[in-house]
């Protein structure tokens, strides 16, 4: 049942993921085809973060403008963030499994000094310091040196990965800030443009930016798709990949370069502080959906692109919502939903499973308790066992269950037709209930016998141990146990208990031996008519 459930969950996840994926691709195509050379004039949300002035017209116009993609700028922004989310989700699922989730964080901070230096050098040599390719080149070079520094610290000193990331992140970022303060003093003007790399400026994305993000993003996705098997192997078992002749170092380099590319194109959109979210959150969220790597990657790409789309759309519709932060919040929302409702590890599914297990445990405890009560009194003459009524208080004393829990369980078992409740609240087994209860007691005792004969556990302790395992024994295991214990003839009967059944009842029963540390010389007579041939030779 569990297996089926999981398969259903996976199928659902697959369905969800692939459809979202297709949707994104379609949207991309539509947007790309309708794209003409408009000039962008009005800032969609004007969201330099410490935002002061926002030029919003009327909000109903915004709704229409954003949702119907009338405005060219809207199209560009939505397309760009969607593709960015897709690329980051794809790459992120690899880095997550490689336990390098925060690599993106360190990396994005490490780009800052490169941006500043590129600006300074370019202006010094008489180029346009603010041109995007120059800045991104600087960012890439500086990011790669950051990655190299992390790898050197991790491989050549005794420090662990987290310290390496922390050192590189903070030092590079400090250097970046120091350089930015210098840049602000240059004669070529203020460097306000550079600061946007810290927080991002989605809204002022122009068509060329979107194309850059689109190309780089699609390229990233394509490379991940082509090298899917190799990268998966790298993430799961680096040593094995190496021993099979895969160029582990090259693959690692490719993965890190993909992270660098995604990070750099994302700097423009969401800024370096929040870029890490695009890399980590969709991937972490997709873990709740499936355990299959391929599906996880697709779902992660889907969640990422949806967050990008929804985040920038929300920020476009409502005033005063910075789009970078909104994209991240959308990611967070996706994560929260996945954590609750994910079909593979979600909270609901987990609680559901535990609830079902608890119920079945309660049911088994009730039936076996009733059976043992009846058996201990030896009331089996004339096949009228199931007519023996057990007082409610007696059952309550059998285990440490609350009266409410027991009452609910009795009602459930009554509905299943296993017990009958009489007017004085005493409970008796029905014929069907007796068969079921006998089966459960049989399984419990088989396991006890196994523990005594093969695991050499003291008979006084096996009851407890068997209690924990009996609920998860399946049929094959029972058959195996029976074979093992040479109880084949007992398939249809019930093994007697190898230890005295402790009298938990209010009324002490006469035929239960008092010394629980010893095996009983003779167990109480088993119930069914054929039992005398199957007496257990106690070990």
């Amino acid at each position: 049942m569990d297996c089926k459930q999981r398969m259903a969950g996976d199928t659902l996840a697959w369905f969800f993921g692939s459809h979202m994926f297709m949707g994104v691709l379609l949207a991309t195509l539509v947007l790309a085809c309708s794209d003409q050379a408009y000039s962008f004039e009005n800032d969609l949300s004007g969201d330099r973060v410490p935002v002061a002035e926002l030029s919003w017209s009327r909000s109903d116009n915004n709704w229409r403008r954003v949702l119907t993609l009338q405005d060219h700028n809207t199209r560009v922004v939505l397309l760009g963030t969607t593709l960015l989310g897709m690329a980051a989700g794809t790459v992120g699922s690899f880095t997550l499994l490689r336990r390098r989730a925060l690599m993106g964080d360190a990396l994005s901070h490490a780009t800052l000094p490169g941006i500043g230096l590129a600006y300074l050098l370019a202006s010094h040599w008489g180029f346009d310091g603010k041109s995007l390719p120059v800045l991104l080149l600087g960012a890439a070079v500086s990011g790669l040196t950051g990655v190299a520094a992390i790898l050197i610290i991790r491989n050549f000193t005794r420090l662990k990965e987290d310290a390496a990331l922390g050192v590189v992140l903070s030092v590079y970022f400090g250097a970046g800030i120091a350089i930015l303060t210098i840049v602000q003093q240059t004669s070529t003007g203020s460097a306000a443009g550079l600061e946007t790399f810290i927080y991002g400026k989605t809204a002022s994305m122009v068509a060329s930016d979107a194309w850059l993000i689109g190309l780089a993003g699609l390229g990233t996705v394509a490379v991940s798709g082509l090298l899917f098997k190799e990268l998966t192997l790298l993430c799961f078992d680096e040593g094995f990949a190496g021993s099979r002749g895969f160029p582990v170092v090259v693959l690692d380099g490719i993965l890190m370069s993909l992270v660098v590319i995604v990070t750099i194109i994302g700097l423009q959109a969401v800024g370096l502080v929040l870029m890490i979210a695009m890399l980590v959150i969709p991937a972490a969220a997709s873990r709740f959906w499936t355990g299959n790597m391929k599906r996880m990657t697709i779902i992660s790409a889907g969640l990422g692109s949806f967050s990008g789309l929804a985040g920038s759309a929300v920020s476009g519709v409502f005033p005063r919502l910075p789009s970078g932060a909104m994209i991240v919040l959308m990611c967070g929302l996706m994560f929260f939903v996945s954590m609750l409702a994910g079909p593979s590890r979600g909270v609901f599914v987990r609680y559901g499973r535990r609830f079902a297990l608890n119920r079945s445990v309660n049911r088994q405890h009730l039936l076996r308790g009733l059976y043992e009560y009846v058996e201990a009194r030896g009331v089996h003459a004339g096949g009228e066992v199931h007519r023996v009524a057990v007082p409610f208080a007696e059952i309550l004393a059998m285990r440490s269950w609350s009266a409410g829990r027991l009452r609910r369980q009795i009602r459930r078992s009554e509905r299943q037709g296993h017990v009958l409740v009489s007017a004085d609240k005493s409970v008796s087994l029905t014929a069907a209930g007796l068969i079921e209860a006998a089966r459960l007691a049989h399984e419990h005792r088989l396991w006890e016998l196994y523990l005594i004969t093969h695991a050499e556990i003291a008979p006084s302790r096996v009851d407890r141990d068997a209690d924990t395992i009996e609920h998860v024994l399946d049929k094959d295991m029972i058959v195996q146990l029976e074979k093992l214990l040479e109880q084949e003839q007992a398939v249809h009967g019930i093994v007697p208990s190898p230890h005295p059944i402790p009298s938990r009842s209010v009324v002490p029963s006469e035929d239960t031996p008092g010394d629980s540390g010893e095996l009983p010389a003779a167990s109480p007579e088993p119930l069914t008519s054929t039992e005398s041939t199957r007496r257990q030779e106690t070990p």
Partner: protein
Amino acid sequence: MQVWGAINWDWSLDGWIVLAGILCAVSASLPGNFLLLRRMSMLGDAISHAVLPGLVVAFLISESRSSLPMFLGAVIVGVLTAFFTEWIRNFGEVDEGASMGVVFTTMFALGLVMIVQAADKVDLDPGCVLYGAIEETGSDMLSVAGMVIPRVVLVLSTVLVVNLLFVVIFYKELQICSFDPALATTSGIHAGLMHYLLMILVAVTAVASFESVGNILVVAMFVVPPAAARLLTDRLSLMIVLSAVLASLSAVLGHLSAIVVPGWFGFRSASTSGMMALTAGLLFSLCALFAPQQGIIVRWVRSRMLSYRILSEDLIALLYRMEEKQPQTPRTAAVLRDALLATRFSTSLVLSMHRLQGHVDRQAQQHTLTDSGHRLGAALVRSHRLWENYLVTEAGVSMDRIHEQAEKLEHFTGRELRDRLDQQTQATELDPHGSRIPSED
């Protein structure tokens, strides 16, 4: 007042800045040591981003920038961050880094949205939070007990005292919890409680440093000085002291370089907290390269020296064997090089070193051992052959494997060990291959 002529150093201004930097750096590096040992170095970064919504809410509720509500807000959010991180790690079965990444980015984004939403009420500039305004330390002065000191210095010294007390009082508990939480729990120490206390401390330190000296500085000081100190020592107590020293050093040098270095390129000055972080990074790279035990270059030099010593000993032993077995073979540098499988450079280096020390003579390209060289070779060959004997007779190693073993062991065998080997093998004359074992002297 002018120091070194070129620097515009004003004690009433720069002195306070440096003091604030030192206070912040030391108070961050104290808990940072334990974060490093717990492999949670990124937590400083995470918490200092995540407290943003806490600050905004505290600001909105209290409608002031006074410290207490800010602290409370930040501490609550900091603990929540640690809690969520733990929770997601358990539920999602992802590693600590990823769950941290999920929590702190979402919190930070939430904080940004709140700031923008309440832009006219909140006077919090995220830029200010990130860069810090350590340069303005001297502008907000308070008079305490007759002394006029900056508010920042007062706040940061309080934090430093709290952190110091915490580390001193709970030193043993923190130590056990960092190295072995399970042992701590069985010894009756509440490992979870210590974890959350540490988180609170990290949050408090981050917040106190936030508006005064900036996020970068505190994040850097959580990680970099402890990491550098870790490379210098194995003792926790020494590591904590060293990290504090390195932190103060980077604060002082950082401010100096913020004033001086940009001047070389014709600029006025750079961000002090940025330069402090950068200086800490430079100190870290110095430690990583030149630490006495762990330094990358130190270790490289040490391994190169060992390999040269082994090569030079192999060379002497080779010459000894050649003179013993095939006195007619030419012993030119090229022949020796081929026999030792060494490079041209290292062979000639080792040969010239031996000639300098007087172990080897060269006449017409032929190398011969001098008397001292001969004694050296005899000792080495004696070690080698004694070991071969020992390995065969006492350790039962098969004949075809003893040579490689003895080849390794001969370099680490002294006179005393040779005598004992000789005793153990009943002072046999010949080694298992039938060669004579040279006598001592």
